[in-house]
């Protein structure tokens, strides 16, 4: 019972982070039909920015905000400078491009920040909360993680549903030609979409790092889990990504708790293959069929 509770609560927190990362991948996929594998190192490098600021004596929240803003800028720059030229061309080119970015950002982090493990602070306790007499596996930082992800998702829903910019962005993602005819500056919307996605990615990077260790490769497996979560949800649907992230977090937490943590990536692979072979449109797809 205790084990089950621990697994479920751990899965919930992990799931929130995967959901955020999957959402970042999904936002970019919707607007530009690119899976941004470079999301992982981008989130890694913004977390390092936060770490440098915090180590320099500033508060956690200054570093937190700087990382999010850094993510926003990085996403915009990457889209405008590197990705724009391959948009709408053969998909293999875009994939290779994001992988090139992946290697480059990795290496730059290694050169600038070094490859050793560094501990990253957490703003809230990382020890289990106590309810009555028993201590449960939910930490203060875990609560913060879930709340932060929910808040960001709420803000995104507000943005896309109720603002003019959100409407323009949806139009640009839905049909570029028509949106352009209707006066939407599609290029600008795509840049904004990448920037927002990178911001959400940075958030997940910060949440994973909190109270733990960071090094240049610490996000590498997260990009796999984020991708699996996004595919679970259909890769096209933000809501699906979030639900996929939660499901994946719970399943992987169960695998880690009952079978061994070294098998977690294998479990992710098995889940991914199962989804792609059985329901390629994701668990919540409305389309009868889609080419995968």
């Amino acid at each position: 019972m205790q084990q089950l509770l621990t697994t479920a609560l751990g899965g919930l927190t992990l799931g929130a982070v995967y959901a955020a990362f999957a959402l970042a991948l999904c936002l970019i996929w919707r607007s530009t039909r690119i899976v941004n594998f470079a999301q992982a190192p981008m989130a890694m490098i913004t977390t390092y920015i936060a770490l440098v600021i915090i180590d320099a004596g500033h508060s956690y929240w200054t570093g937190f905000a700087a990382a999010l803003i850094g993510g926003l800028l990085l996403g915009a720059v990457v889209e405008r400078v590197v990705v724009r030229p391959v948009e709408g061309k053969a998909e293999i080119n875009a994939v290779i491009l994001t992988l090139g970015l992946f290697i480059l950002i990795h290496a730059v982090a290694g050169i600038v920040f070094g490859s050793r493990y560094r501990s990253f602070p957490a703003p809230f306790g990382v020890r289990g909360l106590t309810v009555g007499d028993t201590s449960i596996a939910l930490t203060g930082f875990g609560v913060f993680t879930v709340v932060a992800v929910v808040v960001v998702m709420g803000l995104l829903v507000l943005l896309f549903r109720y603002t003019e910019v959100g409407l323009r962005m949806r139009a640009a993602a839905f049909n570029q030609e028509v949106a352009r005819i209707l006066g939407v500056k599609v290029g600008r919307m795509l840049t904004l979409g990448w920037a927002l996605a990178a911001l959400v990615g940075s958030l997940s990077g910060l949440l994973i790092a909190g109270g733990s260790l960071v090094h240049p490769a610490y996000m590498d497996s997260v990009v796999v889990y984020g991708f699996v979560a996004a595919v679970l949800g259909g890769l096209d649907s933000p809501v699906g990504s979030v639900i996929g992230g939660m499901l994946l977090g719970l399943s992987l937490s169960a695998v880690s708790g009952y079978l061994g943590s070294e098998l977690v990536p294998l479990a992710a692979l098995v889940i991914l293959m199962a989804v792609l072979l059985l329901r390629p449109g994701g668990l919540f797809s409305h389309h009868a069929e889609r080419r995968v």
Partner: protein
Amino acid sequence: MPTTTETAEKAHAAEPRGGLRRRWGNSVLPRHLTLAALGLLAVTVVLETTGSFANSQLASMAYLGIAAGGLTVLTGLNGQLSLGHGAFMAVGAYTTALFLDGDNPLPLPGVLAAATLVTLLVGAAVGVAAARLHGPYIAGATLALAVAVPGVVLHFDRLGGEQGLGVRMPETPAWVLDAAYFVTGSELNPTKYVAYIGWAALVVTYVLLANLMRGRVGRTWRAVRDDEVAAEIAGVHLGRARVLAFVVSTACAGLAGAVMAMAVRITAPSGFSLTLSLTLLSAVVLGGLGSLTGALIGSALLTFLPHLVTGVGVDAGLTDVRAAELAPAVYGLTMIVVILVAPAGITGTVRNLWRRRRGAA
């Protein structure tokens, strides 16, 4: 817009039909065999005239070249992107380590064949699943594979955990030593022996791949890559063509892993990280997708560039560890630049320039 591979392909198709081809006739096999013999000769000369360090570097170039050759066939000819070739190399390397572990190990060609075969079977299993996927999905699935394999290795105690397995190279057979002494007039040390094995494996692999690419199978692969519907109408079985390309490619990775195990003398999970898979991809992109020459150039860069660049970094005042990251930075940057500026890679771009100059003259 033409894809990376199409551009390279067009350049290739438009190759002048006279010259070489007329002299060689249309028969592909003799041409490839002659090139292979010349290649082996060149390798012998280079290995005999260079020192032990260069020999070990050339051995690593050989296994990177074998893996890159397999990857360029898969990505360039068939349009499937694999980020999991490092994982397949791990399968080959661990198989080799296990086969060489006993008291009476198989002779080396048998071990190489076994490693290739085991990887081929794993590749077939993955390929059957991957054949139904497209672009980013297959990239994501093979990425998951690359991340999963080190964990699987850790799960089985027999595979040595983080420390990995030591690889026991058997004694060099006496007849090989005699033959080497007879031909070159110098003693054959173990490093050089492994380098010879690696390059022999590379030449055999490349001859086989080159023949596949030029023949019916290669045509089928290209057809599937360029237009699935048209290929299917023409009677190509899409799934079968994709699985075959994947299996051939992973077999190469397995062989590469086997040579790597012998050259490095240890197989550990850290040797088969995601970075290995990604740098292999950068090698084939840089050289030019779909070109074996490109794969060879790419693997040469992977082998010799780090040494050079790290030296520059250390001179510029970086610590050794940080300077070691300069080489991947160069790979990543060149990958981006190649895709943006010269999608045909080195071989394709040189070919295009050559044609333009001939056209102008």
